[in-house]
């Protein structure tokens, strides 16, 4: 009789454990409250800190337009892109190009502050980790508004409030100002490496979310990127 009861206790315990685990796997979209519950307070996440560089000789691993579920509206934006009107010629460089260009970045992690410093156009992103939500009255900016939380050792970042632009030079892969970007930063086992899984959700231009994953190695240094406007090439300001 004791043996059966032990089995029942074990079964009940196992069931409760599984139920508890599954209740933590909610849809992560927009919920910054999850972080503290999952975070190990002793983990300083130092393996993600530092200077990181993606191989500048390799083509950044963006899919082609044909490989993403682009809507006709999105395709229309690809087709109508005019290089001479690229704001980048006027040194206005948007989120998509900043995070994916072949220049290094620095991840600063300090308690509930995560700051990313990009060599490209010396841009900065502040990731708010204190459980706050995005403001209701965001107007679109170049780098948007980011909140984040820890899922064990993975940094999850949600960004909205971006000015619509393109992820790639040459007008491929557009995004609208309603885009939601989810990034997952994690450390790869073995040699010190950073992996970023970058997910784009933008029903205006893509029928479904799509993702791309990048691997970074520790960078030697960050240089100044000084963008010079060549007036005769810059698009006329609106």
């Amino acid at each position, binding site marked *: 009789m004791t043996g059966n009861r032990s089995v029942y206790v074990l079964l009940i315990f196992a069931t409760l454990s599984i139920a508890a685990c599954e209740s933590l796997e909610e849809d992560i979209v927009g919920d910054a409250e999850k972080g503290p519950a999952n975070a190990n307070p002793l983990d300083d996440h130092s393996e993600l800190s530092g200077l990181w560089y993606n191989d*500048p000789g390799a083509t950044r691993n963006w899919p082609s337009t044909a490989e993403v579920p682009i809507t006709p509206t999105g395709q229309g934006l690809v087709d109508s892109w005019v290089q001479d009107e690229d704001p980048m010629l006027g040194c206005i460089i948007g989120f998509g190009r900043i995070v994916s260009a072949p220049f290094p970045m620095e991840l600063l992690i300090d308690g509930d502050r995560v700051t990313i410093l990009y060599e490209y156009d010396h841009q900065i992103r502040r990731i708010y980790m204190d459980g706050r939500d995005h403001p209701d009255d965001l107007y679109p900016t170049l780098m948007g508004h980011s909140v984040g939380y820890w899922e064990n050792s993975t940094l999850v970042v949600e960004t909205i409030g971006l000015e619509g632009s393109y992820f790639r030079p040459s007008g491929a892969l557009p995004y609208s100002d309603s885009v939601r970007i989810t990034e997952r930063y994690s450390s790869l086992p073995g040699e010190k490496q950073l992996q970023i899984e970058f997910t784009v959700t933008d029903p205006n231009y893509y029928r479904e979310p799509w993702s791309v994953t990048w691997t970074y190695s520790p960078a030697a240094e960050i240089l100044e990127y000084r963008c010079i406007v060549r007036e005769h090439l810059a698009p006329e300001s609106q």
Partner: protein
Amino acid sequence: MKNLMTILIVGVTFMAIVSGHAHHSFTADYNREKSATIEGTVTEFWFENPHTRIYMEVKNENGEMEAWEVETMTPNVLRRMGWRPDTFKPGQKLTAAGSLARNGANRISLSILTLEDGTQMKPMPTDEQRDAFYDQEP
């Protein structure tokens, strides 16, 4: 009227197909199928973003001097490969090969530079140069 409509439709369709190819910023500016090699003297070297440029004076087939522009990578990558703002100086002799600008301008997008002593320089890092981009742990 019907013939005119046909011509218009065909014409517009043709233009749409042709213009649709100018997607990539490189191919919008440069013709990968048409390359040029120019030999001459440096007049200016602009080591700045977004594209580093070397201006040269080149003698053409008629013996006339022409001004040419050699466009290449961001200095942020070139610097990591050892290029510096004074890597090229006015008066220096160079040979530059690359894709020709589409719009007929005297401009190429650099593939290979050859110095007077025969040394070749490419604007993409060699494996050895690439090592310098990364933190090499002792």
